[in-house]
């Protein structure tokens, strides 16, 4: 399957070599999730990360005393899962499909191994994760500011 077609013009592919794209395509697996299905559970090993093709995924905090709280939703083109980059490779949140969702799964272990010997791929994957982490940090800060409330 052509990843670039499935994912549109995701910036990731702009700076990869044909061999690197071929590698990612070789390990990419398209998966469909029914509404409510779990992509990964919190506190479990970060095996696969995803890029959403269609549908929406919620990141949830699971608490024993209350129903799961969605802290962010991710949609088309968004990266689902950041914790596979650094040890201990454990998910912090649960990812669950809010709508019927199609996503492309990547085996994190294989990507990490390849990154160990491919400096450009390593840099591009880190950039992807860093850009996403910064965006989510900014978003979280803005949410803390109570963006839609007038100052009193």
């Amino acid at each position: 399957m052509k990843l670039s077609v499935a994912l549109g013009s995701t910036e990731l592919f702009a700076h990869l070599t044909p061999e690197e794209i071929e590698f990612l395509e070789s390990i990419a697996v398209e998966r469909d999730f029914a509404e409510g299905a779990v992509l990964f559970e919190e506190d479990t090993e970060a095996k696969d990360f995803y890029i959403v093709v269609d549908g929406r995924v919620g990141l949830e905090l699971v608490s024993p005393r209350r129903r799961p709280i969605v802290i962010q939703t991710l949609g088309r083109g968004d990266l689902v899962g950041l914790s596979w980059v650094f040890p201990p490779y454990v998910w912090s949140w649960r990812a669950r499909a809010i709508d019927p969702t199609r996503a492309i799964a990547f085996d994190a272990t294989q990507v990490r191994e390849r990154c160990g010997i491919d400096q450009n791929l390593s840099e591009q994957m880190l950039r992807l994760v860093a850009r996403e982490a910064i965006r989510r940090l900014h978003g979280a800060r803005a949410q803390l500011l109570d963006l839609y409330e007038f100052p009193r």
Partner: protein
Amino acid sequence: MTVKAPALELAAEEMRPLPFRVASNRRETADTVTVELEPVDNPGVTCAPGQFTMVYAYGVGEIPISVAGYADDTIVHTVRAVGAVTTAISHLDVGDHVGVRGPYGVGWPMAEAAGKDVVVAAGGIGLAPLRPVVMHLLDNRDRYGAVSLIYGARTPDDMLYIDELQQWRGRFDIEVEVTVDRAGDDWHGDVGLVTNMLPRITYDPTNSISMVCGPEIMMKVVARELGARGLGPDNVYLSMERNMKCAIGFCGHCQYGPDFVCRDGPIFSYDYVAARMRVTEL
């Protein structure tokens, strides 16, 4: 010739409201209501999206409220009860009378938007001044390119115009993305910053216009993200807000740097106000 004061032509009564009657009212959120006002023995007023009127509550006072809709001769206002006048207005019953002056102010750039993609971005009660924009865009749909609305609110309970949002979401000629900061488990929609919705919608940044309304910090965040995505500050329009007493440039309250928001605004392009938005307490 004898010196005496000349016989005077008195100027128009600019401070005199027209009587209006509450035709309907509807609770939007815990502290916000939408009232529809109809003129009483007068031809009513003609509004454009982005303008505001001064609404007078008997014996309490007068405040500026953005026009949230207009049809025939009626005006729709959405009012959040934060002060004496807004509280009085939110307690009005159908049939009660108020005064209305206006409309005033420079509206949204609807003419400039013709032929372009239009990104409407609202935060919280900021959807109210953009509601007539959406209605105008939908009523004149073939004049515009892709049309989208992104709307952020603190919680699902803080969202305005739930029924209309639902209707608009069902249409194929406008993309609507709604998101909240915090949600209970009965919320099936998106959670996260309103700017997270920008990748979901269709617009050509080189031929788009964006109209943004919400608290200043929300507008700033949205304008900044639009800029990062190639929609320049000269094509991003914001609705500014300051205290107003007269709406006609006399009372001085609404000054924002050199501008009187009542007369020179409330709609300004982001490139025009960006430097001022970095100054605290201006």
